[in-house]
């Protein structure tokens, strides 16, 4: 299986940078700036400083050289923040373009009714929800929809990367088709379910581009915190001249503006939306489409993870474990028949049957010349081989029984009853029975057993360390479920699960205040997907499931929930870490600016100039430059997210507090000192 992922962008792609540069100027539009209160404040202060500077320059003030520079850096602070957002959006757009390529530019064959043989050719973009289109082998599917009639194999590699075509048929759990995929065989009629621009691909494109991004709940709360901090510093700086007047100090307003902007949390304020967009972006790289930022954030909060057993906890493909022959059949014969019928079967199950037969009976592969292999089809649900002397079929019990009945032309006899017993026995032990028949006579059953995925136990341990409980959901009986649950190391299981039971379980956990994530694909999963706080629909699933969930996994890999949770957590952590960093920075800025402002009145305050900055002017300038440049310096971190390894909350906090708290205290001391040395060397102040 090859996984198709959008081509990875280097962190600073040239084209993205150039576009971001342009966009960061466009974003100076007050209507855009006002969405970000901290940056809007910064821009207002920059305007004020510019006006005052111009007045000072025209009147030939002594400080005008420094004032010009301060005003310029105030503007740079805003532009750098815009730049960060623009880069994130630019990268999102690049991702979106890669998503868009999968959208069909082709035409559609619209029909008026399901049975209609006549169609009219329209542009795919003109299709409306409810339109019926017909697609035949070779056609591109023009939009998201449900198969109304027919069955076909569809190549979905364009969006999933899975090269093997998949079956799409009406009525079942595999009825959903995605625009941009291609019909390989047969003919289907599709009812289009999304208006142009409303397909989930369109929604995701809008999200990663940042255009329709709504603030997530935590982002809103954090913004309030930042606004609060801004107000506190506004009070501090606005009242400072009054207090300073006691010592006869008059502080130039531009210096006050510099102090104010360095104190307010511009670093996190400037990077906040970039972090959010980058989080969505990271999700797309995992081939997961989220319908809202809120869902991604909720993923980080998940307490309980409901995972389907098959394909998630156990290998979707089962392994042959024994041959169960009917009473009047030799086990060797059964094994040989199974062996021969599976020689051409490239599925893991088929291979495991061949391997088991070889080990048990040392069977040798015969000449293939006179063998005609019958592949598995959606209609027959059987596969097998036609030999010169025999015809062997294997498949699900009902289809083999039907096959037997058809061949012998009789109603099932005693042998069939025994067969059913065997089949049931296997099913009860948690395995899958595969019936083998030769020349229309059943031989016995191959027991296909669930194999717990290697490494899954460790993943669950990781989740447990993160505080997430895993619950395995299976249709198996409780005994089997318990056995597999113990083997896989899940915390709990739901056996004999029905969609209703699943929904009830989710509600139960939510009553207790927990957040629940699950993934599903069938139509009957839709209520549970909608109820869950994070519902990940498999792309191979029904349109109903895809609509109900708040994320769609294009690769249909249920274990990806774990990655989604991590991305959600990383998003919050990046915000928290940069907030801490931003606030911790203020200490150094005070030590740079306060002695500078009051040195004339109180030479003693020189003792607070612990960095030994060259002059009061250079100190203020160094602080404001550091404040602006740090935004740019942290863009890579905002885009990549802070490093995250699953661990207990306390460990994570300790680590982040040391890096971003302590680091936030120390880094600006060094940075401001270096900038001050440069300013002094260049003679800027």
């Amino acid at each position, binding site marked *: 299986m090859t996984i198709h992922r959008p081509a990875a962008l280097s962190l600073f792609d040239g084209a993205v940078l150039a576009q971001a540069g342009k966009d960061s100027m466009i974003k100076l539009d007050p209507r855009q700036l006002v969405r970000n209160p901290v940056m809007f404040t910064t821009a207002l202060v920059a305007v004020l400083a510019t006006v005052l500077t111009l007045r000072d320059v025209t009147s030939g003030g002594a400080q005008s050289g420094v004032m010009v520079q301060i005003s310029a850096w105030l503007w740079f602070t805003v532009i750098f923040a815009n730049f960060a957002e623009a880069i994130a959006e630019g990268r999102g757009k690049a991702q979106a373009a890669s998503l868009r390529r999968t959208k069909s530019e082709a035409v559609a064959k619209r029909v008026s009714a399901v049975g209609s043989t006549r169609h009219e050719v329209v542009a795919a973009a003109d299709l409306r929800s409810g339109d019926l289109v017909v697609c035949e082998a070779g056609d591109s599917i023009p939009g998201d929809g449900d198969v109304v009639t027919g069955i076909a194999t569809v190549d979905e590699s364009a969006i999933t990367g899975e090269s093997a075509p998949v079956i799409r048929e009406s009525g079942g759990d595999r009825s959903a088709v995605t625009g941009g995929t291609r019909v390989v065989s047969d003919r289907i009629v599709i009812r289009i379910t999304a208006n142009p621009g409303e397909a989930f691909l369109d929604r995701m494109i809008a999200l990663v581009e940042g255009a329709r991004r709504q603030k997530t*709940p*935590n982002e*809103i*709360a*954090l913004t*309030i*915190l930042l606004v*609060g901090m801004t*107000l*506190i*510093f506004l*009070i*501090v700086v606005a*009242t400072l001249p009054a*207090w*300073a*007047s*006691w*010592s006869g100090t008059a502080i130039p307003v531009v210096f006050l503006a510099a102090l104010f902007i360095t*104190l307010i949390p511009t670093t996190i304020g400037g990077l906040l939306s970039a972090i959010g967009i980058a989080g969505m972006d990271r999700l797309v790289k995992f081939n997961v489409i989220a319908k809202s930022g809120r869902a991604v*954030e909720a993923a*980080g*909060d998940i*307490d309980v993870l409901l995972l389907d057993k098959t394909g998630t906890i156990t290998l979707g493909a089962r392994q042959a474990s024994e041959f169960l022959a009917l009473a009047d059949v030799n086990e060797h014969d059964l094994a040989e028949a199974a062996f021969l019928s599976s020689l051409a079967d490239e599925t893991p199950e088929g291979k495991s049957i061949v391997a088991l037969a070889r080990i048990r009976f040392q069977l040798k592969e015969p000449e293939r010349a006179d063998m005609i292999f019958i592949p598995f089809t959606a209609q027959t649900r059987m596969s097998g081989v036609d030999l010169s002397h025999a015809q062997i079929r294997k498949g699900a019990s009902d289809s083999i029984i039907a096959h037997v009945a058809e061949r012998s032309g009789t109603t099932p006899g005693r042998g069939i009853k025994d067969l059913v017993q065997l089949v049931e026995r296997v099913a009860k032990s948690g395995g899958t029975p595969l019936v083998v028949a030769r020349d229309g006579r059943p031989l016995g059953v191959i027991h296909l057993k669930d194999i717990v995925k290697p490494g899954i136990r460790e993943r669950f341990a990781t989740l*447990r360390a*993160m*505080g997430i*409980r895993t619950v395995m959901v299976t249709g198996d009986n409780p005994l089997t479920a318990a056995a597999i649950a113990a083997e896989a190391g899940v915390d709990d299981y739901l056996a004999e699960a029905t969609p209703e039971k699943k929904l009830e379980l989710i509600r139960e956990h939510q009553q*207790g*205040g*927990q957040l629940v994530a699950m993934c599903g694909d069938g139509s009957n999963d839709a209520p549970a997907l909608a109820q869950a706080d994070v519902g990940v629909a498999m792309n191979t699933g029904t349109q109903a499931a895809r609509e109900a969930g708040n994320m769609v996994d294009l690769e249909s890999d249920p274990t990806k929930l774990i990655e989604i949770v991590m991305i959600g*957590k*990383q*998003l*919050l*952590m990046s*915000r*928290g*870490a940069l*907030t*801490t960093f931003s*606030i911790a920075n*203020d*200490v150094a800025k*005070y030590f740079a600016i*306060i*002695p500078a402002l*009051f040195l004339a009145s*109180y030479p*003693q*305050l020189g003792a*607070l100039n612990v960095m030994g900055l060259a002059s009061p002017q250079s100190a203020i300038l160094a602080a404001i430059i550091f404040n602006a440049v740090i935004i740019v310096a942290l863009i890579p971190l905002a885009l990549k997210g802070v490093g995250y390894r699953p661990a*207990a*909350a*306390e460990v*994570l*906090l300790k680590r*982040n*507090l040391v890096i971003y*708290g302590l680091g936030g205290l120390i880094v600006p001391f060094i940075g401001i000192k270096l900038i001050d040395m440069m300013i002094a060397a260049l003679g800027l102040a």
Partner: protein
Amino acid sequence: MDAYGILQILIFAAAVLALTPVLGGFMARVYDGRARLFAPIERVLYRLCGIDPAREQNWVGYALSLLVLHLLAVLTLYGLQRLQGFLPLNPAGQGGVPPDLAFNTAISFSTNTNWQNYGGESTMSTLVQMAGLAVHNFLSAAAGISVAVALIRGFARRSARTIGNFYVDLTRTTLYLLLPICVVGALVLVWQGVPQNLNAHAEAATLEGSRQVIAQGPVASQMMIKHLGTNGGGFFNANAAHPYENPNGLVNLIHLVAIVAIGAGLTNTFGRMVGDTRQGWAILTAMGLLFLVGVLAAYGAEARGNPALGGMVNLEGKEVRFGIAASTLFAVVTTATSCGAVNAMHDSLLPLAGLVPMVNMLLGEVVVGGVGSGLYGILVFVLIAVFIAGLMVGRTPEYLGKKIEAREVKLAMLAILATPLGVLGLGGLAMITPAGLAGIAAAGPHGLSEVLYAFASAANNNGSAFGGLSGNSVFYNTALAVAMVIGRFGIIIPVLAIAGSMAAKKTVPSSAGTFPTHGGLFVALLVGVILVVGGLTYFPLLALGPVVEHLALAAGTLF
């Protein structure tokens, strides 16, 4: 610093630690209704007032009752002061108190500030002292504790609409907690020498033959509630430095323990009521660390002596029986809490020793803090700390299983904004108005310190002062009163709103993914957030006041 000094600090800390679980457990019984000793008295009171004790209030109702009661209390106290000349129990024949001073005093006592722009023995009649001021000592303390209890209920309850009944909480606090301790404590104080009589003045002919008029009154009963309720309004102008209020080292220790006991105990009550006493101990540990740093800094600074006077022991404004150690300990305790009683004149403390009380107040008085107000004050910081920490562990932040969301962050920030507005805004006004400047006594940076201290004290409802400032003017009486109102109700109302919104939330069971709020890491984080928020807000002014003064003094510069 000497061994006796350190030992006194340790004895004080040990006494508080020993009392914490006892008082904490008792208060938990009082507020969940298990203590029933005075039930008959309660029934009579509720019937007379028309209060249904079983009917709980939502946060709006709780806040409304609190505000109405305070409004009435302020009006009553104002009236009593204005009319004291016509009222009984006025042995010294005091005349009516001027309107601005009466206004300031009424606000001051009802907000638990007890800033005194008057000299107790020279202004107020015995009736005002007892029925006016002393009642407010009980009321304002009980109100603060009630708000804290309401907030605790908010955290403890799940999916609830109500947070208790304000009148019931107020009544039970007074009857079960404050009065019994006060009666016993006051008698101990009298035994140790604190007067308790209804005489006006005693007249003495001194050994050298001059006449000495010695003010008298019901001092002991007021001392006990003034400290226990972190009120701090002295019976005498010199407050707890007056030998009658605080005659010896033992009484001094009783005062100190009384100041801190309820505030420390409430952390334990909090832990018990939310079902995890470790939560309470964690908060008390954070408070304890801040206290320890403060007391060592102040004591260390003061013990070095005044460099401008050749390093002479700084006994200016101190009493011999307390010396340096017990005086600085008292200064730190009284400002860490919102008490504001003083046993030494803070204005005369060395700059860095005077900086500690200022910082204590400016941090929002959360180092144990005022009764009730200390706990709800620090819980506001806890919310902010948990919010930032929660983000850093990658989850929607939660405290005690309650998610901290936009609404709570908004309310917490409102509460945090109240004090800077009062201190920096109104204090700044004092620095640029002639009326404000006229009150400043000291020249140089110490002048700024006096104003900063006054507004820090008022806006944090402390009540202690750099006494050099002449606060009894229309400007200061008004501005300080406004600061007190902002600092009291600007925090109480958001806090009650937080209580309401917390009570309504579901409780999420904790897991390895939730960050534990009872460990050392949380304590360190909380201390960090308190220091950073407070420090960043006031760094410039602290630099311009005590820090410059210290640097100048070290260089021998006088003003």
